[in-house]
């Protein structure tokens, strides 16, 4: 049983309300921060902890905070990225739904550290019911004096609001999120300037993921060093992994980084193995954008060492034989799943979600989807596979924001590891519409009940 930082008390329903939350040790970090620590000391602890951004990029949080421009008298803003939309990822939702005060507490502590007077939680519009939970929690925090003017009798004041999105994956990109919060289309901005210098309304801004923010109270309470001792190497602490796909126990698990992937998939404490006793075919370990790993590279790296759940181990071998920890959206495929179909599905997602601002992504995502659609539906040609490879290369790295890369990587990895399956689709145009490559069952006609 690994260390739990976020979900220790998740099974206690009363933790949703402020009284229950305080009963289990909540809001201690605010007392400590406001009464015993300076803002810079908190940033220092966060740096020491080695905490890395939990939204997917894994950028060191303390370093990001230290970039916040403090040389002007412009207000500074902290934005919480709760636009969780990466397919396979549903971890932030659990925190906000069951322990909303953990996020509120983290926002207050982080805002104090950054000298922020107004902070916003940008939550995806589809999570409207969670927005209401958060607003309730914020109202409770105001009533208890944790928010508003002169918090706990100190000189520090903070206002915290929740802002809903309107249905756009791209708003998870931090500059698109800022644009969206400004009431515009979610078109990512050209960087530099980075938000830490000129973000929301041109003011210095920090954008952090929900899980990242939720880690801050622990770091303040227990110290950055304690946190840094959890985990493995540069992958410190714990990570929420949302496991889904063909497994016995889908759900959100808090793991200590460094847990072997094999244990995560097969142990009853976590995923509980592949559903129906089937074989594992592949895993997408960090949300739809990261490269897919074929079975032989899931539990072991190409070098033969055990693959661990950590930023470094999952990335070992580069994109040739590795992948990324990403957002922690762990998607498991059993032997009956079709990689071509799944890649087409992901491509359709990126086509649908492209903001359309810059040309490689706007045009490239649509082209990739069309080629994949053709391959999956038995109308493909052998040249299509090379064409697809070529198109993804033209999109990757040439766009304003990382969305272009995110749309290209899954396609590249699928061809890299499962080219035989693409070829089989071309060679068996009729059969591929009825069953999947290798093993598999015919898709069942739905029956009216």
């Amino acid at each position, binding site marked *: 049983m690994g260390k739990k930082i976020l979900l220790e008390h998740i099974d206690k329903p009363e933790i949703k309300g402020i009284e229950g939350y305080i009963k289990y040790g909540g809001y201690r970090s605010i007392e400590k921060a406001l009464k015993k620590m300076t803002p810079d000391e908190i940033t220092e602890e966060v740096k020491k902890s080695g905490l890395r951004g939990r939204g997917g990029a894994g950028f060191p949080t303390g370093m990001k905070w230290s970039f916040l421009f403090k040389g002007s008298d412009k207000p500074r803003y902290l934005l919480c990225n709760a636009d969780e939309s990466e397919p396979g990822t*549903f971890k932030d939702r659990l925190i906000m739904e069951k322990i909303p005060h953990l996020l509120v507490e983290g926002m207050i502590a982080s805002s104090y550290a950054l000298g922020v007077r107004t902070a916003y939680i940008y939550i995806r519009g589809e999570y409207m019911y969670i927005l209401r939970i958060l607003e309730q929690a914020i109202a409770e925090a105001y009533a208890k004096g944790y928010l508003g003017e002169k918090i706990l009798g100190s000189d520090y004041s903070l206002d915290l609001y929740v802002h809903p999105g309107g249905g756009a994956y791209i708003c998870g990109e931090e500059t698109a999120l800022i644009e969206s919060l400004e009431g515009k289309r979610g078109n990512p901005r050209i960087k530099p300037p980075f938000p830490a210098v000129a973000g929301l309304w041109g003011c210095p801004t920090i954008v952090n993921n929900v899980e990242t923010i939720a880690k801050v109270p622990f770091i303040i309470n227990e110290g950055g060093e304690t946190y840094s001792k959890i985990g493995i190497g540069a992958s410190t602490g714990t990570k929420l992994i949302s496991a889904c796909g063909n497994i016995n126990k889908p759900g959100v698990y808090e793991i200590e980084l460094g847990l072997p992937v094999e244990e995560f998939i097969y142990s009853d404490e976590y995923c509980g193995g592949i559903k129906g006793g089937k074989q594992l075919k592949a895993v997408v370990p960090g949300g739809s954008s990261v490269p897919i790993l074929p079975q032989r590279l899931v539990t072991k790296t190409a070098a033969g060492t055990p693959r661990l759940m950590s930023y470094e181990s999952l990335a070992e071998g580069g994109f040739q034989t590795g992948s990324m920890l990403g957002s922690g959206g762990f998607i498991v495929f059993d032997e009956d799943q079709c990689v071509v179909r799944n890649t087409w599905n992901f491509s359709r997602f990126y086509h649908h979600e492209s903001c359309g601002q810059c040309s490689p992504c706007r045009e490239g995502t649509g082209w990739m989807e069309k080629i994949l659609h053709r391959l999956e539906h038995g109308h493909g040609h052998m040249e299509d596979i090379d064409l697809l490879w070529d198109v993804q290369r033209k999109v990757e790295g040439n766009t304003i924001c990382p969305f272009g890369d995110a749309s290209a990587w899954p396609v590249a990895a699928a061809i890299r590891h499962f080219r035989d399956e693409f070829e089989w689709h071309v060679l068996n145009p009729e059969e591929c519409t009825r069953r999947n490559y290798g093993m598999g069952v015919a898709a069942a006609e739905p029956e009216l009940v």
Partner: protein
Amino acid sequence: MTATNNIAFSPERMAEVQAIIKRYPEGRQKSAILPILHMAQHDFGGWLSQDVMDHVADLLDIKPIEVYEVATFYTMFHLRPVGKKVLEVCRTGPCMLVGSDNIVQYLEKKLEIKDGDTTPDGMFTIKTVECLGACGYAPMMQVGEKYHEFLTPEKLDRLLDEFRKDA
């Protein structure tokens, strides 16, 4: 410009609108556009007509085109009339792995409409959507604000009956 066709929020809702605008610094009232569009869609028949969007532009003191630009960018806003209950079924990877295609087909067969269409009685619209962040509880759909997870044909039958009674 003034609102046409008697599109206007009720006084209680107008107070809510004003409270939302106050969350943002002065002169940044445009930031309130998404929350207010959600309210408008809820209050004015489940979709955003041009009149409704013009009213929102009026409230926020911005140009109407700025509202159209935003409303057409975000997929939660309906720009055409929809049924009383919009069945937003997730179709993305993790849901597909566990049978969301069958769920959509089942709904299409049962309601005798295609994805994107509304039943002739104006009761249901089927709308396939991209990932709603419920991948572990798939297949799933969202109706209104509520998530319905672990869908099966039997569960759908029950839900559709409930929705009909509810409407």
